[in-house]
C-alpha cells in the first residue's frame, strides 16, 4: 500500500487548522493608493535576485534542451536550425510573462476597490503565509490553488503582494489573450500563456517546459498553476491534469534542485461570481468567449454581495519526502539530462498519485459555509421542507460533517436557526421561503415552453448542486460504502468490498479517487462510519446499526443524482445511441434523451442534464471499455457494447446482485 506521508491523520475530525485574518479590513480603513505604491521588497529564494524577463528568455533559448530539440528537428525536417530557432523564439514571445511592478501596483489598487465592493471579507490563514514565506527562501515553490473562478489568480497575486511575498508567475490558458488589453495586463502581472492543446508539437513542448523549469531552477519566482487545469463549473474538484506537475517535478528528479515545495491552496467562495454562468454552461447554453467586453459586462456583478472568500495556504509538501523510496533518481544518471525522455511508469504513477493527494489536500482545506449543508438538504427535499425541520436537519448534518472532518465555518455561538436563516438570505435567488417552508426556487419567473421551463428548473438545481458539491468530498468514502452495502444486499464484507471497489471505479472520473487507493479508502470509510456508530465492522461482516439508518440513507441519497446520471447515460447508449455516432454529438444527444425522459415523467433527476456528469460518465465507460473510440478520418466515433452498458445500468440501479464474474467482465 502507498506510504502514508501525505494522508491526513486517521481521524480527519482532529485535523488542526489555522485561523483566518481578513485582509480587506485594513483596506477599508487606509488608503488604497498608498497601499498600491508602498515599498514592496519580497523575500526571495536563497537571496537570489530575480533576473529580468529578457535574461530569462535568452537562458531558455540557449538551453541545452532547446538546442538539442532544435538540432533534432532540423535533422528530421530538413528545415534550417535558424528557422526553427526563430520559431522557438516566437513561441516564447507569445508565451512569456513580462512581470512589471507598475502593473502589479495598478492591480493592487483596482482590485482593492473591486474586492471591497464585491466581498464582505477576504480571509487568509496567516500561519500559512508564514510557512510559505519560509518555504520561498528554502526551495523553489509551486503554488497550487483550487480553481473555481477567474478571480482565483487575481486573488492569489493580490494576497502575495499584500503580504510582501514574491509574486508568482502563473500558467494561464491562451484564451485570455483573446481579451487584448486584459491579456497583456495579466502578462505584465506575471501570467504566462500556454496553448490549450499542443499534443504533438515537440518544439512547443520543449520551449514551454524549459521555460517553466528555468524559472523553477533559478528560484526565479514561485510558479503557480491549476492542477485541475480549468475552472470547475460544478465546484467539485476536477481530476488533476499532470502535464505541468510533471514539468515542475523533473528538476528535482534530475537533481537540479534539492527539493520543491508544493503548496496546495484552497480558495473557497461563499458565492462564486460565475454561479449563474456555470449552470447555463452545464446545460449547454454556450459559454461566452472570454472577451474584454464580456468581463466588463461582469461589472454589473459588482453591485451584488458575494459574501466572503477564504483562502487557505496548506502546508508546503516536500516533493523530496514524497518521492523518498518511490522514485529512484539514479535512473536519470545514464542519459544527459537535457535529452527529453518519457517518464518511467513508476514516475508516471508517482506523479499521478501526488496530483491526487494534492487535490485532496485542497479539498480538505476548503472552507464550507452552513449554506452548503442547507443546499444539500434542500436538494434532497425537492418538494420543500418545514423551516423547523430544515433547522433540525441542518444541525444534525453539521454534527455529522464535523465528525467527518469538514472544515466548517460555523462558529459555536451561531445557532442553527440563525445559520440557516442567513444562508437563505444570501441565496434568495435559489430558495423560496414561504409559510414556514423552504423550497428550491423551481418555478420559472415567466413561463415559456415546457422545455424552457425545464431548463430553468434545471439551472436552479444545478446552481444549488454546485454548493452541495462542495461538501461531497467529506462524505464521499462513507457514502460509497453506504451504497456498496445497499448494492451487496448481504452483509459479507468481501461482497461489500467488491461493490465498493466497483462503485469507486465507476466514479473515479467524477470524484477525487486516486487510482490504487481502494483498500485505503475502504478502511477510511469503515473507520468513519464506525466512528459515528452507523455501522459495525467485524472480521467478515459490515452491518448497519439502528442509528446508522439515518446517516446511511442521507449519504446514499446525497450521491443518488450521480448514480442516476450514469444510469441515464447507459440507458441512452442502449436505447438511443445510433451505431458508431460521432463523439462530438454525444453531449447533445444524451441531453435531449434526458430531456425527453424528464418531460415524460420517467426521470426526475435534473442533474442528469449536466454535461459534466455526462462527460465524466463517458470517460468512465471508455475506461471500462463499455464504449470504444474509433477514429475514422477526422472524426471520432463511439462504439457501444450494448450488453455491457445494459448490465452496468442494472448494476448501478441495484437490479443485479453481485456476481464476481460479472464484475470481472466489467
Amino acid at each position: 500500500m502507498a506510504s502514508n506521508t501525505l494522508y491526513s491523520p486517521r481521524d480527519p475530525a482532529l485535523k488542526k487548522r489555522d485561523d483566518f485574518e481578513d485582509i480587506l479590513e485594513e483596506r477599508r480603513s487606509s488608503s488604497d493608493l498608498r497601499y498600491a505604491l508602498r515599498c514592496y521588497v519580497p523575500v526571495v529564494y536563497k537571496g537570489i535576485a530575480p533576473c529580468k524577463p529578457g535574461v530569462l528568455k535568452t537562458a531558455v533559448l540557449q538551453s541545452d534542451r532547446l538546442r538539442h530539440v532544435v538540432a533534432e528537428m532540423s535533422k528530421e525536417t530538413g528545415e534550417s536550425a535558424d528557422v526553427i530557432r526563430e520559431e522557438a523564439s516566437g513561441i516564447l514571445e507569445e508565451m512569456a510573462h513580462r512581470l512589471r511592478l507598475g502593473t502589479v501596483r495598478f492591480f493592487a489598487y483596482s482590485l482593492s476597490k473591486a474586492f471591497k465592493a464585491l466581498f464582505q471579507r477576504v480571509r487568509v490563514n496567516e500561519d500559512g503565509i508564514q510557512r510559505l514565506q519560509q518555504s520561498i527562501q528554502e526551495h523553489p515553490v509551486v503554488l497550487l490553488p483550487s480553481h473555481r473562478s477567474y478571480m482565483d489568480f487575481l486573488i492569489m497575486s493580490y494576497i502575495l503582494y499584500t503580504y510582501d511575498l514574491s509574486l508568482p508567475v502563473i500558467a494561464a490558458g491562451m484564451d485570455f489573450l483573446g481579451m487584448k488589453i486584459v491579456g497583456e495586463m495579466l502578462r505584465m502581472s506575471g501570467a504566462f500563456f500556454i496553448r490549450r492543446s499542443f499534443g504533438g508539437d515537440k518544439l512547443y513542448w520543449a520551449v514551454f517546459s524549459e521555460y517553466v523549469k528555468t524559472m523553477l531552477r533559478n528560484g526565479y519566482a514561485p510558479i503557480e498553476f491549476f492542477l485541475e487545469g480549468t475552472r470547475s463549473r460544478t465546484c467539485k474538484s476536477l481530476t488533476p491534469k499532470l502535464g505541468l506537475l510533471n514539468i515542475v517535478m523533473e528538476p528535482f528528479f534530475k537533481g537540479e534542485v534539492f527539493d520543491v515545495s508544493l503548496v496546495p491552496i484552497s480558495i473557497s467562495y461563499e458565492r462564486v461570481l460565475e454561479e449563474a454562468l456555470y449552470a447555463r454552461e452545464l446545460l449547454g447554453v454556450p459559454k461566452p468567449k472570454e472577451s474584454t467586453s464580456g468581463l466588463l459586462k461582469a461589472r454589473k456583478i459588482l453591485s451584488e454581495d458575494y459574501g466572503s472568500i477564504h483562502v487557505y495556504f496548506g502546508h508546503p509538501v516536500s516533493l523530496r519526502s514524497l518521492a523518498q523510496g518511490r522514485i529512484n533518481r539514479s535512473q536519470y544518471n545514464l542519459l544527459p539530462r537535457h535529452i527529453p525522455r518519457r517518464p518511467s511508469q513508476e514516475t508516471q504513477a508517482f506523479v499521478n498519485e501526488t496530483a491526487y493527494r494534492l487535490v485532496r489536500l485542497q479539498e480538505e482545506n476548503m472552507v464550507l459555509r452552513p449554506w452548503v449543508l442547507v443546499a444539500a438538504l434542500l436538494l434532497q427535499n425537492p418538494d420543500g421542507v418545514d423551516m423547523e425541520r430544515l433547522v433540525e436537519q441542518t444541525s444534525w448534518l453539521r454534527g455529522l460533517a464535523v465528525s467527518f472532518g469538514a472544515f466548517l465555518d460555523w462558529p459555536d455561538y451561531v445557532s442553527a436557526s440563525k445559520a440557516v436563516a442567513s444562508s437563505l438570505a444570501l441565496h434568495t435567488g435559489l430558495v423560496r421561503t414561504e409559510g414556514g417552508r423552504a423550497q428550491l426556487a423551481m418555478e420559472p419567473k415567466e413561463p415559456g415552453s415546457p422545455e424552457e421551463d425545464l431548463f430553468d428548473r434545471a439551472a436552479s438545481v444545478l446552481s444549488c448542486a454546485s454548493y452541495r458539491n462542495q461538501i461531497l468530498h467529506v462524505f464521499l468514502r462513507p457514502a460509497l460504502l453506504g451504497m456498496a452495502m445497499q448494492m451487496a444486499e448481504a452483509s459479507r464484507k468481501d461482497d461489500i468490498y467488491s461493490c465498493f471497489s466497483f462503485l469507486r471505479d465507476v466514479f473515479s472520473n467524477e470524484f477525487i479517487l486516486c487510482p490504487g487507493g481502494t483498500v485505503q479508502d475502504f478502511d477510511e470509510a469503515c473507520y468513519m462510519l464506525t466512528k459515528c456508530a452507523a455501522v459495525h465492522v467485524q472480521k467478515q461482516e459490515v452491518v448497519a446499526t439502528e442509528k446508522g439508518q439515518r446517516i446511511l440513507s442521507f449519504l446514499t441519497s446525497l450521491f443518488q443524482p450521480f448514480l442516476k446520471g450514469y444510469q441515464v447515460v447507459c440507458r441512452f447508449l442502449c436505447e438511443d445511441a445510433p451505431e458508431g455516432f460521432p463523439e462530438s454529438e454525444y453531449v447533445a444527444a444524451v441531453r435531449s434523451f434526458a430531456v425527453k425522459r424528464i418531460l415524460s415523467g420517467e426521470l426526475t433527476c435534473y442533474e442528469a442534464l449536466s454535461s459534466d456528469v455526462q462527460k465524466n460518465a463517458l470517460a468512465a465507460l471508455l475506461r471500462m471499455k463499455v464504449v470504444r473510440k474509433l477514429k475514422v478520418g477526422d472524426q471520432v466515433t463511439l462504439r457501444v457494447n450494448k450488453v455491457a452498458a445494459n448490465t452496468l445500468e442494472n448494476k448501478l440501479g441495484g437490479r443485479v446482485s453481485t456476481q464476481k464474474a460479472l464484475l470481472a467482465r466489467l
Partner: protein
Amino acid sequence: MLFPCLCGLGSLVSSQTPKPCCLGSPIVCERQRVCSTDVWLSDPQYPGAEAMVLTAIRGELVVIPVEWSWLTLSRVLFSRQEVMKWNGWGYSDSRFLFNKKGQAEFTGRRYRLSGMVLPSLKDWFESTFGASLQHKSPATVSSMCATLNASAVPFPSLNEAFLQDLKSTGIPFSHEAEDRVFRAHGHCLHEIFALREGKFGRVPDLVVWPNCHEDVVKTVDLACRHNVCLIPYGGGTSVSSALECPPDETRCIVSLDTSQMSRILWIDEKNLTAHVEAGIVGQDLERLLNESGYCTGHEPDSMEFSSLGGWVATRASGMKKNVYGNIEDLVVHIKMVCPRGVVEKSCQGPRVSIGPDIHHFIMGSEGTLGVVTEVTIKIRPMPEYQKYGSVVFPNFEQGVACLREVAKQRCAPASIRLMDNAQFQFGHALKPQVSSIFTSFLDGLKKFYITKFKGFDPHHLCVATLLFEGDRERVLQHEKQVYDIAAKFGGLAAGEDNGQRGYMLTFVIAYLRDLGMDYYVIGESFETSVPWDRVLDLCRNVKERIVRECRERGVQFPPLATCRVTQTYDAGACVYFYFAFNYRGLADPVNIYGRVEHAAREEILANGGSLSHHHGVGKLRKHWMPESISDVGIGMLKSVKEYVDPDNIFGSRNLL
C-alpha cells in the same frame, strides 16, 4: 654512536641491543648512493654486525644490522604504537591541543605546522560547531593513554596446527594484544571512536610479518591447509572498514602485515620502472627514489603511511595524477599470491591486448583475492621545478566552471583543487601565529578587499590551489595559461603561499579529527566522482542533505558540510566532502553519524555520483554494490572470487 637516533624506535631497540642506526638523512651520507633499500653497510664499530639493512618502517628510515634475527625487527614493530597513535591518526608526537591559554597548538617537530600556535582555530572551532573548550568529551581513559588496556582485548583464538607449521617457517608472528588491536581497524570514524572508548570488537588472533614474496607464498599455503582466515594489512589507512574483522568469523583470523616487504628490488632506468615490494609506504618509496633522482609522483594524502600494496588493492589516487596518473596508470606488473597460486603477467609490455586485463581483477580487490607482493611501477625523473599557486573566485560556481574549462583544454597542472567557501574559511582558521612561509593571507585579504578583491563577497568566494611541476620554462608557461583561463571566470591569482599552505594542510587535517573528538565533535570525509554537468548539483544537494538529515536526527547544532573538487578528468571530477558535527546531547552519536553518512551516499548516487572515486568499498559501502555494478557484474566478481579463493581464505568480506 654512528647514527643519531631521532625516533622512538631507536631508543626502544637500543635499550636491549647493540645500537641500531636509524633515520633518514644522516644515513644517506654514510653510505653510497644506491637505489635499493637493501643497503648493506659495513660498520667497524659493531664487530659481528657485518652488514646492516636500511629499511623503511612506518615512514621512518631504520637501519638495522642484518644479523639481528627477525626478532629484532618484530620488536620494533611490536612497539609501532611508540611511533604512532593506536587510537588516533598519525605519529604519537604530533597532535592538536588547546593549550592553557585556550589557543590551539600543533605539537611535535615533523611538520611545518609543528610547534606552532594557531590563534584563530579556537574561534572557528567554537563558532562552527557550537562547541566549547569548557565541554570536553568524557575523558575516556584510553584516549588519553599512550597504551591500550590489554586486558580488555578478547583472547586470541589460535589455530594450533597452523601456528605449529608457521613456527617452522621462521616467519615472525605475534599474538600480543597491542599488535592485534593495531591491525584490527582502519581510520573510519566508528573505528577510532570505539578505540577511544576502549571498545574492541573482533580483532585478529594473530599477526604475521612475512619478509618477502616466498614468505607470503608459505603463509598463504599454510592458511589454506589449516583453513585460517587471512587479512592483508598494508598501512592501515583504510577508510572503508576494509580491515575490520567480520564479527562472526569463527576461524582464526590472521593479519598479514606487509611492512617487512618494503624493498626496492631494482630500478630500470631504460624503461623508467622500479620493481618494489608491496609493503613499502609512500613517503619511503618517494624518498628512496628521490635519492636516485626519480619519483613515482603518486601522492595520496595518506602517503606518509599507506602502502604500495594498499594502493593497488584499493585503486588509490594521488594528488598529482594529472601528471603521473592514478595507480592503475602507474603499475606495469603485479605479482599476487592467491590460494589458487601466484598470478602475474609474463611480460612488461606497456599495453597489451590479451583479453580482459587481469590487473583489473587485482586492483580494487581489497584483500579479498590474495596478497599483492611485488609491483613494477613507472618512475619519472624528479621534476626540475615546482611551483604552487592559488586563485580566488567570486563563488564556487565560477570556480567549477574554470576547472571544467581547464580540463577541457587538458591543461590541468599536476594538482588543481577547488575549495568551497566553508573550507576556505577553515583554511584561515589554521593560520599560525608567526611564520615566514605563512604570510598573513587573512590580513592581506582585508587589503585585497579594498584593492583587488573589491566586489568579492567573503561569504561566497572560494579558492583553487594549484601545483605545477616540470621544467621551469614550461611551468611558467603553463602557469600563465591556467591563470588566463581563471581570469575568464573571474578568478584572481592569490599567491603561491596560499597554494602551498593548502597542500600542506592536507597532511595535518587528519590530525584535527582527534582534536574534535576531545570536544564532542565527530567527523569524517568521503568522496565521489561525477560527470562535469552534475558537479554543482551534487555538491549542493549532498551538503543540503547532510544539514537536513542532521536536523531530522536530532543533532542539536548545525553540522559542518563542506566540499572541494580535488581532481579533474576529461569527463568529470572527483569531489571530496568533509562532514562533522557537535554531538552533545546525543545518546548514540556514531550511529547517527553513520546514518547521515549513509543518507549522504544515497544522495550522491541519486545525483549521478559514483560509489567511490578512490576510498574503495570495503564493508562500509558494499550495500550499494549491486545497484552500482548490476547483478551480473556482481556475479562476475563472485565467480572470480570463487575460482581464486574457493574457501574464502581471504575472508575480510569486502566488496561482495
